[in-house]
């Protein structure tokens, strides 16, 4: 049995402290009005930003579970593939509402 300091503590530290920094970043760009949800491509960017956080959270979480023999390594690929498909579909759907942004 591996110690908690090696299994889940780094994961919790990474995503709680990282999550705070990420949230501050989102708060700052909203407060500074550098992201404008009236623009369709900015709405898409906001989705991509949150997706990115969940994406990395999933990668680390799934590999940790596989390393601890809770799931088979194959399910890492399955989980990430499903997430990737969701990402592509949502980004495509959001793109159809606005064109021509540079």
């Amino acid at each position: 049995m591996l110690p908690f300091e090696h299994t889940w503590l780094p994961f919790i530290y990474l995503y709680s402290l990282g999550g705070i920094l990420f949230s501050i970043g989102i708060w700052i760009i909203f407060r500074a009005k550098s992201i404008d949800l009236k623009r369709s491509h900015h709405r898409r960017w906001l989705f991509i930003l949150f997706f990115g956080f969940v994406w990395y959270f999933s990668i680390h979480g799934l590999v940790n579970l596989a390393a601890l023999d809770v799931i088979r390594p194959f399910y890492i690929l399955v989980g990430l593939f499903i997430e990737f498909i969701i990402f592509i579909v949502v980004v495509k759907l959001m793109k159809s509402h606005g064109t021509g942004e540079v």
Partner: protein
Amino acid sequence: MQTFHSIGTSADWIVMVVYFLAIMIFGSYFGRYTRSTTDFFFGGRRFSWWLITISIVATGVGSHSFVKYSAKGFEHGISSTMTYMNDWFFVPFFIFGWLPIVVYSKIRSIPEYFEKRFSPSARFLATILLLLYMIGYIGIGFLTLGKALIPMLPESFMMFGATFPITLMGAIIVIAIITGIYITYGGQTAVIFTDLLQGAILIFAGLLLFALGLAFVGGFDAFWNILPMTWKLPLADFNQPPNFNFVGIFWQDAIAGSIGFLFMNQGLLMRFMACKSVNEGRKAAAVNILFVLPVSAIVVGNAGWIGKAISIINPDLVPVNTSPDQIFVVVANIVSQPGVFGFVMAALTAALMSTVDTLINATAAIFINDVYRPIHRLMNKAKTLSGSADKRELLVARYASMGITALGVLAVLAFKNFPTVYEAHGYFHSTLTPPLVVAIFLGIFWKKFTPAAVITTFLGGVGLMLLGARYPGIFIAPFDHGITMNPSHPYSYIRALYNILVCSGVGVIVGLTTGWQKRAVSRLSQNGETLMKALVGVSILLFFVPLFNMGSSTFQFIDLLLLVVVLPLVVTHYVSYDEEKNTKGLITSSIEEARIGFKSGLPNDREGIKVEVSWKLSEGDEDYVRFSKDDMIKMAANSEDLVYLCDKRKWLGGLKSIHSRIGKSHDEPGIVYLTKEQSRNGLFVKNRILEAEKEM
């Protein structure tokens, strides 16, 4: 520790030489597109996101190299990937904060931002710190290249009857000469296109090696079951051992490293600035960090994991005590055939060269922009940048590239005694990035961050960092999260936390006490200039105390606290600063003003579509392009809007393109009128269709 020499066959060397020649010819071909310093350094701000994304692979992967991640993969397993997968937390700050500011404010280097945002003195200090950072980075790149090639070379060679040993420094000098020649004559466009090719090859070579390695150990299931459980965890143990622990690397890499890489790595920033627009830069950054970095993490670390698996099933083939920095070469040689090994090694070394090339090019940009031009202006020799001045600067840029290459080789001496490249890089990041990282970060997000605050962050922060480096047991230990201090390399990673805290602490305290400083200065200056001049002398003396290690740790600490009080008064008195003027368009809350400044008018954000047009030459030499009324409606564009025109062929990635302003409309749908100069700058080919899109 077991080391290796003369690995590989003559077939491998032939493949390597052919590969390098092909890459150099490829780069030289695109070097002909370099017409000015703008092209040399920024590639003319015209490329598509996908081209920049792939070209960043070679830069990013090269710098976080095969050698050091394979070494950590061999020692600690899959957690070698963690430094590649912790960059997302700062992406909102980057793509909606720093990137638009950099592009819209039209700055060419990070120190230039410091002058616009703060003062010339802040620019001067930022230039020194940034040059140290960049040259140190080049040194790390050369060290990695040397360590990658040494196992392939014999221990010595014979010439004129005498035996000459092949040393690490000797190999690095030869590599530096080849690198210097290439970058000197290529420029940024050549680097981008060479990196594009190498990025793709690199990913392929790394994945090929993983596939060959898995086949060698009996397939993925066998590989997974051989590895001990601790080797399979994606994150290292929280605070053990001192040379590889999660919390230290989190602060060194996820915080200092990520901000450093995204915000102050001039080389990477220049790639994003070479994108045709801010949105393309965002796409390049997002795709790179989201999808390319996780793949790259496997590409660069897998040789170490395979090496570990082989060392368990066949310790005679890969001894457990193999030098970690040599494991990549050892494993590549074992799992691949002659020729394939040469190809993998060529891809590795070429990628490392790409990183070094990018850094040398970026450092030359800083030299021209922040050293050469200000000195030249001071000497009053070039009031305006004429055509001949630009040619002269291009020549100076090429000489600067050579000089920087030489300094990069010398910088290797500072890092070559670390046990592994990984630790050298970690120590380097923890030590050199915090003052600039804190200054950039507070500068772009906090309006109250004044010249007094930034200069005190640089000098007071560096003083406190020196104190921490000299007395780690006293100053860094309270933040060590339980990491044991290694006396020979104390707190290589977690020192980043201490360094960031002291630099940001100094910056925030000085920023918050701006009102007090103004009142104090106004009272002190009532008694004439003498007192203020005396305070300048006192500040210099106070900074010299930690610089030359005078007195005990307590004395130096009190001295630095005094410096943090006195220095802001001096700066407030001598540096003229207008908060409104100096922050306009240069902080996140004024990006809209930056856009207005970029366009020289109100941006037009109506969403239109791209149009395809044929081009004709027009009379005159004004910098306008003219579209038909119909095409203007489709693009939702007005005259005076900014427009981007490029060759319709997507695979060119924007190589043949221009930015311009829309002039008066005409009545010929599907036609755009360009001047001769515009068609020449855009490298447009007669009868080729162009695609136009309104920028703003």
